[in-house]
């Protein structure tokens, strides 16, 4: 029995020895710690750092707006909200560390990221009015105690975009609640920046090491969480950001207004930013800075799709989706009714990306997404 075993070992050691594809060198240069620390250093931390810079600028613009409320100041704050939110959309899927789903932080930054089904819910203006008519001092600490729907990116979008600039100005100047509203707006911007400062500091501190060292492939490992997050975001993009307005969640009745970022009109822009975030995780690159990404891991595992490398196919598919999105010239709520076929096509292409990420990538990496024991069936 033992001899047979040895024989099998020897036979295969020999027969594969001269196969260049299976040699040791290709594999020995690769390790998962390197992938994780490269992702942290090249993609994740720069992503959160740039988000923090945008949020700092946004706080300035919001302060300018609340000090001297003019239409120009409204536009300035709006532009900076878009810049910051776009930076957020590029890092949205890194639901790790302080942004772990089990912690309240994620929902307070963007409740739609924590629960995609709520993503397209509109801010309840009555609840906001209630929140600002208070005897308590309105500061960052106060905003922090409000419901998640009255915090973070969504509430700022509402306060800056829900009406024409002139109306926003009058809300901040002549309205009965003007002072309280200004305080709430300023505090919400300040609180959001504080939260992202905490997250950036956490990554810069111990968390990047924790992240690097959790290099297993079970559900709690960094790799397991990243793969899960990639699948989760791509599915949320498909099901919620496109499927819901297309009426897929409402028995076929279209819901043109159930889009993400309806007030700021950035639905498709954010979709592309999400896509860029996914692309960065796959390539491991951040602009011109090159790093190790999932593509290297997949190539290392020899993940193929017919004659193509799986990594290439994923990147190609991202390009296909980009081109399809670019072919839409109207805002998404309009496109859903006037250009349904194209939106449906984007949905279908996104579904292919979901399959590549959730099915093919997971299968090739063998990430053990298990919730109980398993014996492989």
């Amino acid at each position: 029995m033992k001899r047979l075993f040895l024989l099998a070992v020897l036979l295969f050691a020999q027969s594969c020895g001269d196969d260049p594809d299976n040699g040791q060198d290709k594999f020995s240069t690769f390790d998962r710690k390197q992938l994780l620390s490269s992702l942290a250093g090249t993609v994740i931390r720069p992503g959160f750092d740039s988000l923090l810079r945008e949020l700092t600028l946004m706080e300035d613009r919001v302060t300018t707006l609340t000090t001297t409320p003019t239409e120009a100041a409204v536009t300035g704050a709006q532009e900076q909200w878009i810049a910051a939110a776009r930076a957020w959309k590029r890092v949205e899927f890194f639901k790790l560390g302080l942004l772990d789903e089990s912690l309240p932080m994620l929902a307070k930054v963007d409740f739609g990221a924590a629960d995609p089904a709520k993503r397209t819910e509109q801010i309840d203006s009555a609840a906001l009015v209630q929140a600002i008519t208070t005897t308590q001092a309105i500061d960052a600490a106060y905003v922090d105690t409000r419901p998640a729907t009255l915090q973070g990116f969504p509430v700022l979008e509402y306060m800056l975009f829900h009406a024409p600039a002139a109306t926003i100005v009058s809300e901040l100047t002549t309205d009965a609640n003007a002072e309280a509203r200004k305080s709430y707006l300023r505090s919400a911007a300040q609180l959001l920046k504080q939260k992202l400062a905490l997250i950036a500091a956490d990554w810069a501190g111990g968390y990047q090491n924790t992240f690097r060292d959790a290099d297993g492939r079970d559900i709690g490992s960094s790799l397991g969480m990243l793969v899960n997050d990639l699948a989760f975001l791509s599915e949320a993009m498909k099901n919620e950001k496109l499927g819901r307005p297309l009426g897929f969640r409402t028995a076929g009745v279209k819901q043109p207004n159930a889009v993400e970022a309806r007030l700021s009109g950035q639905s498709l822009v954010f979709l592309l930013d999400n896509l860029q975030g996914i692309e960065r995780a796959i390539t491991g690159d951040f602009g011109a800075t090159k790093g190790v990404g999932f593509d290297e891991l997949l190539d290392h595992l020899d993940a193929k799709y017919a004659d193509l490398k799986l990594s290439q196919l994923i990147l190609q598919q991202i390009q296909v989706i980009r081109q399809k999105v670019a072919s839409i010239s109207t805002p998404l709520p309009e496109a859903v009714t006037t250009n349904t076929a194209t939106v449906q096509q984007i949905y279908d292409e996104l579904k292919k990306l979901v399959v590549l990420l959730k099915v093919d990538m997971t299968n090739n990496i063998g990430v053990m997404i298990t919730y109980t024991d398993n014996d492989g069936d």
Partner: protein
Amino acid sequence: MTTIRATLMKEVPAVSLAFFRFVFGLMLAGGMIRFLLKGWVEDLYIAPTYYFKFYGFEFVQVLPPWAMYASFIVLTVAALMVAFGYRYKLAITVFFFLFTYVEMIDKTTYLNHYYFVSLVTFLMIWLPMDARYSVDAKRCPARGRNTVPNWMLLALMLQIGFVYFFGGIAKLKADWLLDAQPLRIWLSANSSFPVLGPLLDQVWVAYALSWGAMIFDLTILFVLLAPKLRPYGYAVLLVFHFFTSQFFLIGMFPYIMSTATLVFFSARFHESVMRWVVARLAWMREVALPRAAIVRARRPVLAYGLTVFLGVQVLLPFRHLLYPNDVTWSEEAFRFSWNIMLIEKTGHVEFVVKNVATGATWREYPSEHLTRLQEKMMSTQPDMIVEFAQHLKEKFAQQGIKQVAIYADAHVALNGRPSRRFIDPTVDLTTVSDGFAPRSWVLPFDEAPKSLTERVVNL
């Protein structure tokens, strides 16, 4: 013929059965406590709003949360009663029925080793496992027996050996032997394992371990039955289970099997272990060794019954030969066949729903209705996909949408192959039913996995 009969009818020490009862009972109790502590009662039997039924057992229903918790407490107590031999027959019968009931609630949770537990505990109902070193035998010495017919012990050994032997037969697949899959995927993801890590990244290691595991599984039953080879075989077995416990998240299985296989050792060994145990548990100590001369009627009915029981188990793993599709793809006859750790299968499924009356079309996402585990399991198992489509149909009927057609948009990747469409997207799943007939709505998997013979012929 006479020697076989003599071997089967030979009286052997009853202590071996008592030993098995003791260690297996403790393992079961440990398993039940672990299940409770991990919060799985909540996750698996309280959180879901829908449960996938086994064919023919659609009537099995989940109990209210308090009763599910109570069931696991009863199972723990019953397992301990089995271990110590207190009201043994009652305890093992309760354990078998309650455990098997719990496993039949939801197809999602099917595991080969739970199936194994059901089989062994069923067998244990019929064997005089409490003949020695039990509270029962102490309280009522007339129940004690010093020896039992050898066929009883052999039946138990075969039951344990089947897991390995048919597990080995199941490994005679092209993917496993010719491509070293899925071990290749799993091992290369373990490259940071201490000391052995770099080795696990090498392809030849995946092949060596695939073939080694197959040979081990096919031979270990016979090795353990041969007294001279037994210590070596058991050492290999320990190494085998140690590594599987390290690489795979397979819970109690390696420990259960490592202890269960101790039953192959000599009665002298079992006797010394049990003496050591009762030296510490005075209340189990036997008053006097039961007389050897208690001869009961030979029980031909039981012997024939057990033969049928084991014989059926020999046939079940070959059911898949009756189906045209590959068992790892379409999963006809996949369960109850010892297909252990054979597939790395990942899937995505969403449902396209069409209101036949209005023509409106929309999508249903499983995550809305199922737990993550259920969704994951369903996405690769055709029978669950069909069952879920029919469940959706009922849901819509309750909402007043009487006529719907439901199609699956499903993609699956198997053992590192590119994903491909899994379910025929033109088949309205509300019109099919899953029984024993071949699953025509599963798309064929033309490229592979081909059968082993086909691959070898084409080499």
